[in-house]
């Protein structure tokens, strides 16, 4: 039977990372993936990633996928696409459906990196066409170039719900409402703020009562819920939508491991049923490893590190490296992994009510409920300063593992320090050149350049802008505040695009100086055009 040192099931971030790492140590590796494209979820991720340089921060997800694939190819890893692994059997044998046949392979080690599948939530009408998973919406848009609908309701305010809502806006859809039964936004505040300033309304403590329509979704009824998740009478409201996206979490796709007889555990913090495994991802079956979402739902960044650890562990298991090498390399990777798992959004903090940042700053409740800061709140964060002349205003208020802004500034105006989750601090003594590198580098689009002395009575604000068509210099329109309300007329005075910005354009608008700390988005006024 055809045999490899390592068979990897799933060419997503975890699987490809494992394959790359194992191949570096000389293992003969094959990767099977049922999709036509490699990269798993990475190829749908058009947004810039969080993290630090070593986690490929500020790089858009799909580019990370391409990089990994290229590395794998260069190392001689065979990546077989359109190849569905049908079963995992005794003696580390798999069967793979390739075209119209079934083929048998054996691996001296096997890594299962099959990822996760979207959860659903049932409500009246949930089986109508038009109710889809947020991931499905992302696949339609970003892989197939099809918008799922025109008027969208997103259920779920975790990062998936927030990121996909933003991508829906980018694709030209209207996000009519972002709804979550929880009383607080579950994902990063910066992701929420990106939506709020375009005018997307947030309905926290709300749930879907029913999807309306007979043949497809034509509307939705939502209502407020109390602390016990019961709907409050009299709060129901109907919204006209044609699509309801569900972003209510993911469940590990651990079927192959279950059918092979791995010992499983039920772990709500990992998203459901996962194989029991050791620190290197080895399951109860010797030589069968797991990495990525299948072993516990997390982010792609952590999946890549887990994959690398499992790849190295497979190399050690097969005698390609000594235990000492494994221990040393894995230790470094584990520390990188644990740095990603720090901060307010760490697994152990899920469900906790965190009122202050590590530094002692009060977390904005308004941000958590509405998706944006009240004007007065924002100025107390260490990234927000009032200075004469152009300077960065960093509206970053949560301890999340991300630091590209620190590296982006050529003049070292921005300091995060060694702890990746610390809030960025703007150094008032450093001299901002207004280059905008930080604005484009911030994956959360939370950095603005403000110049209150732009010209008499007017300030300029440089905002990150990722929508098409891109406004031109001289265009006039409205400045929107953080909540998406029009606050004043605005004129585009500069538009910068550069390869280094990677498709984040910098739009500089001119507004009355009183609006310098209010206006955060630009909306073209088509009547003026």
């Amino acid at each position, binding site marked *: 039977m055809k045999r490899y040192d390592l068979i990897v099931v799933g060419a997503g971030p975890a699987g490809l990372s494992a394959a790359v790492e194992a191949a570096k140590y000389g293992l003969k590796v094959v990767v099977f993936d049922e999709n036509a494209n490699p990269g798993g979820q990475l190829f749908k991720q058009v947004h810039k990633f969080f993290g630090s340089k070593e986690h490929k921060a500020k790089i858009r997800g799909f580019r990370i996928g391409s990089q990994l694939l290229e590395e794998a190819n260069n190392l001689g890893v065979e990546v077989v696409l359109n190849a569905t692994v049908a*079963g995992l*059997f*005794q003696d580390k*044998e798999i*069967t793979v459906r390739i075209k119209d046949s*079934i083929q*048998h392979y054996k691996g001296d080690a096997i890594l299962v990196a099959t990822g996760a599948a979207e959860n659903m939530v049932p409500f009246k009408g949930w089986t109508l066409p038009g109710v889809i998973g947020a991931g499905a919406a992302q696949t339609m848009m970003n892989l197939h170039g099809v918008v799922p609908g025109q008027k969208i309701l997103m259920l779920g305010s975790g990062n998936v719900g927030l990121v996909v809502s933003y991508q829906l806006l980018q694709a030209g859809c209207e996000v009519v409402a972002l709804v979550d039964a929880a009383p607080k936004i579950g994902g990063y505040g910066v992701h929420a703020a990106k939506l709020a300033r375009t005018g997307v309304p947030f309905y926290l403590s709300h749930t879907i009562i029913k999807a309306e329509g007979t043949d497809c979704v034509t509307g939705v009824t939502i209502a407020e819920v109390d602390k016990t998740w019961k709907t409050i009478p009299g709060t129901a409201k109907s919204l006209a939508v044609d699509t309801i996206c569900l972003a209510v979490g993911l469940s590990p796709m651990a079927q192959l491991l279950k*059918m*092979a*007889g791995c010992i499983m555990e039920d772990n709500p913090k990992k998203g459901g049923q996962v194989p029991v495994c050791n620190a290197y991802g080895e399951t109860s079956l010797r030589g069968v490893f797991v990495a990525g979402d299948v072993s516990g739902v997390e982010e792609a960044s952590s999946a890549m590190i887990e994959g690398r650890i499992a790849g190295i562990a497979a190399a050690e298991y097969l005698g390609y490296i000594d235990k000492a090498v494994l221990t040393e390399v894995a230790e470094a990777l584990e520390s990188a992994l644990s740095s990603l798992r720090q901060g307010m959004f760490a697994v152990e903090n899920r469900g906790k009510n965190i009122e202050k940042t590590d530094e002692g700053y009060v977390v904005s409740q308004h941000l958590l409920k509405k998706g944006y800061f009240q004007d007065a709140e924002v100025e107390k964060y260490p990234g927000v300063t009032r200075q004469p002349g152009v300077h960065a205003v960093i509206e970053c208020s949560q301890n999340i593992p991300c630091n590209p802004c620190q590296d982006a500034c050529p003049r070292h105006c921005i300091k995060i320090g060694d702890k990746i989750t610390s809030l960025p601090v703007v150094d008032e003594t450093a001299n901002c050149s207004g280059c905008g590198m930080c604005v484009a580098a911030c994956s959360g689009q939370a950095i603005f350049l403000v110049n209150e002395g732009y010209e008499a009575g007017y300030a300029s604000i440089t905002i990150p802008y990722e929508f098409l068509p891109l406004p031109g210099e001289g265009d006039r329109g409205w400045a929107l505040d953080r909540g998406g309300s029009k606050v004043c007329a605005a004129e585009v005075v500069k538009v910068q695009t550069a390869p280094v910005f990677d498709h984040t354009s910098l739009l500089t608008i001119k507004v009355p100086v009183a609006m310098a700390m209010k206006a955060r988005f630009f909306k073209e006024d088509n009547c003026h055009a």
Partner: protein
Amino acid sequence: MHKCTEVIIIGGGIIGAATAYYLALQGIKVVVLEKSDNIGDGGSSRNGGGVRQSGRDPRELPLAMYGVQNIWPTLSDELGMDVEYVKEGNLRLGKTEQHLNILRNLTKRCVDLGLDVRMIEAQEAREICPYLSDEVIGASWCPTDGHANPLLATLAFYRKARALGTEFITGENVLEIKKIKGRARQVITANGIYEGETIILAAGYDSRKILGTVGLDVPMTKISLEVLVTEAQPKMFGQMLGTAMADFYGHQSKHGSFVFGGSSGFEDTNKNNGTPITASITAPCICRGIMKYFPLLKDVKIVRTWAGWADISADKIPVISPVEEVPGLIVACGFTGHGFGIAPTVGLLVAQLASGVKPVLDLAEFRYDRFKAKI
């Protein structure tokens, strides 16, 4: 120690559940102990659902015929839920003259015992089931055979027995039967001790090690058998199907899916890793077998395969027997992969043994002590 009950049944499969039901009908207090967390987790939910008389060992045939005549036709009504019993006959197919010889032999010994079963030509077989391939040259035909849904039949007995007051306790691994003052009385599990005036052992292959605790043995092995299930299709045919070479067997369920069992030829020697895991080569082999007889099914999707253990007795028929040397003990095991169709009959007979009523059928052939050296 749990309070003493009238009857303890070890094994919550269809034999245990059916026995419990017939005992509960008489108002007898029964406790059923099942090792798995699930009722009917062994062969009871891992079989092809045949309710077949043809092809049976002559010693077992009366049990099958009794069930088809007296129990199966009214079982759904009796148990208050549809067990999907369909009595549209059994076709056993042959593709070669050698196959037909096998079928003739099987047929003759059943005819001798009064079963309506006969050899038919290919054309008649195709009139009964129009989807057969041209390779089929003849078949044996038993019009009173049929099939039922083993998952539902097992759970229906359980549900009704439970409603009648039988206590079912799952996750209860029986370690030992202990004699007290000369009678089988205590059942010791990982969690505690149960006491019963009568103990019925119907635990499939696991019966063997439990029997060992009272100094008994039934010679049997266990083999792993596999079944596959397709997506639902519009109704095509109602017959139970088999082949002379046992390439596959099965039927179309009420739901529309086809349920086909089969073998790769390595069933006796398959490696056991502790879970009934399927072998990589079996389902493809069953598929090839099916397509030779039913080429029309080639585009139908397989959604699931599973494996299960069958307890194969040394002479290929079960033990259904009181154990006089261990008074109070009754054994029902070793069903050898064809226990489902006769399970209701066996449940009735074992219940009769346990309640001191003369069984409606003679059980002499199924004695526990029938296994003798060959010379």
